[in-house]
């Protein structure tokens, strides 16, 4: 994956020099290991900061809505699907974008890695499919496959779905993964068990809204949780308000979520709120055969009517 970097820099420099774009959105190294941050490169000096490795889990499509300038954006599979969603929802025009596609082999889960080490992690390096972690003066080798983000390990769209340039050869898509094992496990529970499962899941939530802010779908000028008239949900730490926030946010992402994992990655207390959006993703797939963001030419199921749409739940 590291070899993409030179290609990304070369393409970005060319685009900026020829004035095809005003800026390139990519990643640069953060101040801590495994914390790459978004980078808006506007000059060739900025471009030299761009990097690509297995810590680029943030969804860059989040920075596109309502932009007016021409933008080059680096997009892995899930980012490209969210860009398609933005195009469908008229949040950005296709001709404003030069999409630099990056075939992705999964991003690593920083929480999985930090929890394996007692000491503070000083550096994390990649070598092929191995991750070299230095903590407390000792270097340990980990298999990348063991520390992938859960959504990356079951991803079936690693290659970008739309792109103008490619930073590397397309990779083999995974076909033999079970995408919805976790959702089925919850579906099999009794109602009380389900209730308690979500009660425990959301107990640590501090309502910082990092999941909402990291989500490319959450671009409403005023989010329903911030509205005061009417106040849809109270602002306190009451368990029921926390739950209302999470499940309503998930509903707003129905038929749009690409399971990029940005919400889970952004969460400071490590809640896997993807179990909400994933259920809706599964339902969309089962009932409408829909996977979000694969093509800008088809309208999503929630804004079209087909006579064969399932309606058994209405009497």
């Amino acid at each position: 994956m590291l070899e993409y970097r030179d290609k990304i820099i070369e393409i970005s420099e060319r685009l900026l020099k020829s004035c095809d774009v005003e800026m390139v959105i990519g990643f640069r190294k953060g101040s801590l290991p495994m914390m790459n941050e978004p980078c808006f490169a506007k000059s060739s000096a900025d471009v030299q900061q761009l990097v690509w490795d297995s810590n680029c889990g943030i969804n860059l499509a989040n920075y596109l809505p309502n932009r007016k300038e021409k933008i080059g954006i680096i997009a892995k599979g899930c980012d490209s699907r969210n860009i398609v969603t933005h195009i469908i929802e008229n949040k950005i025009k296709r001709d404003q974008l030069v999409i630099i596609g990056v075939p992705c082999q999964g991003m690593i889960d920083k929480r999985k890695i930090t929890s394996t080490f007692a000491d503070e992690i000083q550096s994390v390096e990649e070598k092929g499919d191995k991750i070299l972690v230095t903590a407390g003066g000792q270097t340990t080798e980990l298999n990348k496959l063991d520390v992938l983000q859960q959504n990356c390990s079951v991803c079936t769209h690693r290659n970008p779905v739309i792109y103008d340039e490619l930073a590397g050869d397309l990779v083999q898509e995974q076909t033999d993964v079970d995408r919805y094992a976790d959702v089925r496990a919850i579906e099999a529970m009794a109602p009380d068990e389900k209730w308690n499962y979500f009660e425990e899941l959301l107990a640590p939530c501090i309502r910082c809204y990092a999941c909402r802010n990291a989500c490319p779908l959450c671009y409403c000028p005023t989010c329903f949780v911030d509205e005061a008239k009417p106040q849809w949900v109270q602002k306190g730490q009451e368990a029921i308000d926390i739950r209302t926030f999470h499940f309503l946010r998930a509903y707003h992402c129905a038929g749009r979520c690409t399971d990029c994992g940005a919400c889970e990655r952004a969460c400071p207390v490590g809640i896997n709120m993807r179990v909400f959006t994933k259920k809706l993703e599964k339902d969309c797939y089962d009932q409408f055969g829909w996977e979000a963001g694969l093509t800008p030419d088809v309208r999503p199921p929630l804004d079209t009517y087909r006579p064969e749409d399932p309606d058994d739940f209405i009497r």
Partner: protein
Amino acid sequence: MEHMGIAPGRLHFSWVSSAESTKFVDVVKEVTEKVKALGPNQQFVKTQAKVA
């Protein structure tokens, strides 16, 4: 909602035209009967604010 642990049968959906008054009555009867059978809802209930 049922995925989240709401008791099955507590949430109902129906489509009633303004001309279908009898259907409306039927639906309301059925819903109230079913919900009464389930008893009072213990979920989505707020506890009183704690006063220090």
